[in-house]
């Protein structure tokens, strides 16, 4: 198998983990954090599910994208003595980010390709545009990888967007996504567990460096402003891997630069997480509405920060329109794109007011087969 660059991206190891029987890991030694048949985890890291090799040649045969805001600006407005106003230059480029027109973007933008990709098979099919996971699972749906996979900004372990993603997940308390498993008989194998998603309210418990998150912290649940995050799913655990059924939609806390509260709004969402007593990691996958997703990008990253990795927002906009693969509108044009969010979680204990939660939580969402929404 071609060696994949996995540093810092624990979600990538999911495939390998699936073949490990028993599910108990080294960090489980002596720990038993399943209390009253429940265990919970809090978000402690996260990245887009982007497969990458060390030299990038397999997934980016056309090269890494190097045309970002600076390069675009220089090309459009060369220093040739022409007098130009701020409105027709800087402000025009800002407008192109906030109100992009896909047809108007004519700079090169390389899509990721290759056969291998990360994520889940969302539609149960193996299509011509699907990927095969590193451990051989076919039919992986992750067209967002094609759109983002050749941005230096998001390539680990030191792309600045990749780097900040982890920091933001850890340090912006708004990103405190919680996953609670109840009715758990075994973390190794259990055919029927209940999964509930919340937003937590507390900082994570860290070691002295502040970078390594320690299990055993406590989280209060946000039942006031976190209503829309509360989601119930059914799942099963096989060989220490939790797989949930899809749910119609889910909001996942997502604050980027500046900590501005936001959310990933994922349709046909399901999770696959490798579980241990102290950690969980894997993918949250589904489809995202491309206009919503793009607005989140523009809102969470200034032009200045996009320039860190030669990221062309209009280029991405054009790409996600070209690659959208679900939820067609009346004209037949797809409005959503398949995606996978790699998430790292650390075990926590939940402090929740049962009555309040019971009143706050909506009725269990009806689960639907992914294909029903396409």
């Amino acid at each position: 198998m071609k060696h994949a660059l996995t540093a810092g991206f624990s979600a990538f190891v999911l495939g390998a983990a699936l073949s490990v029987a028993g599910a108990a890991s080294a960090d489980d030694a002596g720990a038993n954090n399943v209390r009253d048949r429940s265990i919970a985890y809090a978000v402690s890291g996260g990245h887009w599910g982007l497969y990458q090799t060390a030299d990038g040649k397999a997934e980016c045969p056309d090269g890494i994208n190097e045309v970002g805001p600076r390069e675009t600006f220089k090309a459009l407005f060369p220093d040739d003595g022409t007098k130009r106003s701020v409105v027709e230059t800087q402000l025009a480029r800002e407008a192109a980010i906030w109100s992009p027109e896909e047809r108007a973007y004519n700079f090169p933008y390389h899509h990721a390709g290759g056969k291998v990709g990360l994520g889940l098979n969302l539609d149960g099919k193996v299509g011509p545009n699907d990927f095969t996971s590193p451990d051989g699972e076919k039919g992986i749906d992750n067209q967002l990888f094609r759109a983002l996979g050749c941005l230096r900004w998001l390539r680990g372990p030191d792309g600045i967007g990749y780097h900040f993603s982890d920091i933001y997940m850890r340090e912006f308390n708004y990103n405190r996504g919680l996953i609670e498993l109840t009715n758990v008989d075994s973390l190794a194998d259990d055919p029927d567990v209940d999964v509930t998603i919340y937003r937590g309210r507390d900082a994570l418990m860290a070691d002295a460096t502040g970078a390594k998150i320690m299990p055993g912290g406590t989280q209060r649940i946000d039942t006031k402003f976190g209503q829309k995050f509360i989601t119930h799913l059914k799942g099963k655990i096989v060989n220490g891997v939790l797989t949930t059924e899809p749910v119609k939609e889910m909001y996942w806390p997502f604050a980027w630069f500046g900590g501005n509260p936001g959310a990933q709004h994922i349709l046909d969402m399901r999770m696959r997480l490798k579980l241990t007593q102290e950690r969980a990691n894997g993918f949250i996958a589904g489809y995202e509405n491309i206009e919503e997703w793009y607005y989140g990008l523009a809102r969470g990253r200034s032009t200045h920060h996009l320039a860190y990795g030669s990221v062309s927002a209009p280029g991405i906009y054009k790409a996600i329109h070209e690659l959208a693969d679900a939820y067609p509108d009346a004209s037949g044009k797809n409005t959503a794109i398949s995606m996978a969010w790699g998430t790292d979680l650390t075990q926590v204990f939940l402090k929740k007011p049962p009555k309040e939660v019971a009143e706050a939580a909506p009725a269990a969402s009806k689960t639907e087969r992914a294909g029903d929404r396409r």
Partner: protein
Amino acid sequence: MNGMNRRRVLRGLLDGTAVCVALPLLNCFLNGNGTAMADGSPLPVRFGTWGWGLGLNKAIFVPQKTGANFDLPEEIQALAPIQKHINLFTGFDCFRDAAPNLCHKTGWVIARSGIAPANQSDLPGETIDVTIAKKISTTTRFQTLTATATGNVRDSYSYENAKSVNIADWSPLQFYSKLFGEDFQDPNLPDFKPSARTMVRKSVLTGVLDRTKELNKVVGAEDKARIDQYFSGLRDLERQFDQQLKKPEPRAACHPAKAPTEDAKPGLDYELVGQRHKMMTDLMVMAVACDQTRVFNMAIAAQQAATTKPGYDKPHHTATHEEPVDAQLGYQKEVSWFIRREMELWAQYVGSFAKMKEGDGTLLDNMLIYASTDQSLARLHQIDGLPMFTAGRAGGKLKTGLHIAGAGGQGTRLGYTAMKVFGLENTSWGTQSNNTSKEIGEILV
């Protein structure tokens, strides 16, 4: 003292303007060995700092060899002329515990205060220069002097608390005027005549402060505390006036040059920063030699440095995030260019103090300069392995020429060591995981 004073001979008037001509160091103010003042009191030992921006590239900055005669990888080759005067500390960490990693802030604040800041507006505790100044710099005209080569008054690594940053002198002209303008009293003048202006100021201030005593009699305890806090700054001023009204101790190395005729040009181009750094350093050297202060700070760049390279379109900080890592070299070439320039200026700074004779040695022999930065690998905002330097032998208390590898230990140990060198009585320094009571013994004599 034999009563001779070179100023008596060479000081005079030229077209109505006072002129001074420097003479070679004379030992007439010192004891027979040149190791102490003539009256037997020791030569003062000073504490200085130097701050640079955006860290290092580990592979080409950190020497392979520890201890003496360490190698100088390419990013610090400029330090060859001063290697014997400095110690290099690598592999020391700053611990933020539950505090966030505030980009370009957490690292330098921990290194200089021992405490992790809680947020962007937080400046916890006080910086080490302020702490040491309270011990060693209470009898000089300025308790501390803070300067920057960036031309920006805000570029300072020194603060007393979150609301009281020691803003930096940024203009060589203004700095000269502050140091050697009409309030400067040459310590080497044969006769001392208190400044009439200072006497008037002092009398006005004394009158004001006397009124506070009356006020204190009629207000409650809480208001007394408020008044006390309000007037504490005025009392510092009063202390400064008191010192100016006393005859200063003679300082053989003190020979202020002529005032600069024009200010350094504005701009962050490294050539301009270098010019400004040299002008400010020369003035700082003379301020210390003239005993205007015993604690001083200099910043070559702000944390998150915005310095620029001619012909390259990205400032230093922007380059750390935008320049791709050169696949062949394994580091960011342009970013390294900036760090190399900073090391050249560090060598210039140390060398300037090393060139100034004092007694049987140099000014540098009687000081400890502490240098730190905001990040280790700036591209990823790392604060582990934060590089630091010291320069000078602190009056014979420190060894130099050593590379000390910290192996992940507390970076605050260096600040604590400095405190012990200056005789501070605290038994530890720093909070939480940065709290230490362990000196870096390898550098102590």
